[in-house]
């Protein structure tokens, strides 16, 4: 079993999610483009993927000026360039998503700039968590065999129950993550530590041979609220919750 877990929520880019970069020749816009489809979400939030948020920002910064590097460690983004630069965020949503509390003015030192806080779209829990799979088949009854409802299959989905434990110290961060979930953002649940992956976790999807893999999912439409349950002694500062999610396909 894993000793900790990580959840990365996806981001929706809109044309407003741009920021301006000044490398000494006047401010230039950097637009992230748009990401709408659910599978696009996951290429954008994958810590190891070439289309991750980190990589996307790095690419767009380098469209403006060469030399930018963007790294992400434990949900904190670091932007660096040997040339002095300044970044402003006209739209707060992208700034908050990246964990910066204000615009960036390194002052020409070329020093890396690290997120002030962990991205609210990244939650790293210190307690065990696991995913238990299941399936749902949507059917239509034909009713031709008396009360025995012979059914026809309409579609099927893969479900998971995510069983999490959260400490009181983590509650604030959890609330931020729950906010993304309840707004309908897909998210990636990672349950097995793997130091070889940039995310620090196993990023192969759960399958027959990878029972502790990651799950790309969103809340089941029936989930209208996320409630946690405080544990009893000796775990008085911990809470547990189970979340029903649908795998994104």
């Amino acid at each position, binding site marked *: 079993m894993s000793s900790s877990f990580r959840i990365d929520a996806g981001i929706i880019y809109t044309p407003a999610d741009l920021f301006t970069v000044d490398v000494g020749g006047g401010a230039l816009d950097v637009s992230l483009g748009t990401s709408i489809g659910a599978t696009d979400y996951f290429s954008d939030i994958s810590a190891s993927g070439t289309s991750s948020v980190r990589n996307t920002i790095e690419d767009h910064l380098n469209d403006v000026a060469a030399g930018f590097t963007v790294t992400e460690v434990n949900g904190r983004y670091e932007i660096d360039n040997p040339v002095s630069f300044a970044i402003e965020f006209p739209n707060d949503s992208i700034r908050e998503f990246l964990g910066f509390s204000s615009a960036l003015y390194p002052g020409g030192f070329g020093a890396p700039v690290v997120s002030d806080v962990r991205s609210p779209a990244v939650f790293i829990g210190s307690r065990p968590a696991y995913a238990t799979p299941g399936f749902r088949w949507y059917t239509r009854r034909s009713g031709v065999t008396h009360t*025995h*409802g012979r059914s026809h299959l309409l579609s099927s989905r893969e479900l998971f129950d995510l069983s999490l434990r959260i400490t009181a110290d983590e509650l604030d961060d959890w609330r931020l993550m729950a906010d993304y979930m309840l707004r309908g953002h897909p998210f990636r649940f990672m349950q097995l530590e793997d130091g070889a992956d940039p995310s620090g976790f196993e990023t192969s999807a759960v399958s027959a041979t990878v029972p502790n893999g990651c799950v790309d999912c969103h809340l089941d439409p029936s989930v209208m609220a996320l409630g946690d349950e405080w544990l009893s002694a000796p775990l008085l500062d911990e809470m547990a919750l189970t979340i029903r999610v649908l795998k994104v396909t």
Partner: protein
Amino acid sequence: MSLAAVTQLQGSLFCRETFTIQVIDDPGPGQQTSNLVVSAGDSFRSVNEFLRAWEAQILSDISVAYSMTVIRAGADKGKLRITSGGEDMTISWSFSGDATEATRWYGHLGDTTDVHAGVSSPFTLPNPHLAGFYPALGAQSARRASTGVRRGHGVRLGSSVTQLTLGSWTQHDTMMDDQGDVPIDVRLALDTRTDWSELFEFRAFVDDVFNGMGEPFSVIHLPESDLSADAFTGFFQASPIEIMAERVQEGWNDYLTLSFAMDGTEVAEV
């Protein structure tokens, strides 16, 4: 008597168009021939029931006891094995009748070729049959949850005791014309010590039931140290059908259970 519980899940078979399967025992001079006619409208509760009917037809035609079984474990899990009385055999799935329907059937049963000429015994079909699930562990339970009895078709309320009205209740209503529901609770145990393949095999089973010949399906459960199996044929009770794996306390990833309810009937084991 089996020491360990054994559970099999099999989809039903339904024939749309008549076709004939021919088996030639010991092809050549003096060969004997058996023809199994599968007629439009014929249905079998399970693959096992179909195999028993096929065995009986061969025994009746040529007086040779063929054995037809589904392999329940190992690399050939889910494949049909046909054992003759010792001679070679020729199998023609679409010997006569509707070839399209014959193709649908032999595809469902795990074959890819219409004719197998002069094959030796035992002969194993190349693929597992569709809509079959053969877990390594027997189910924790497969049993009647309760029994309900419905009023028969056309019975007039109060007609024999207290005539309340002269109104008629004899309009045909299928909800009233039934032998009664038998809710059956099934709790499967999955051996996931090696990997979770059994979990996804179960999903494939349900998909195959619907995408193949359709409901109903059968649960054949031989309890531990019992002499005979319980067999149930029926339909998934819920709609949508939602089946979540459940972890067993301290079983980690190695032991999962699956529970579902079906409406059906208890039938004789085949």
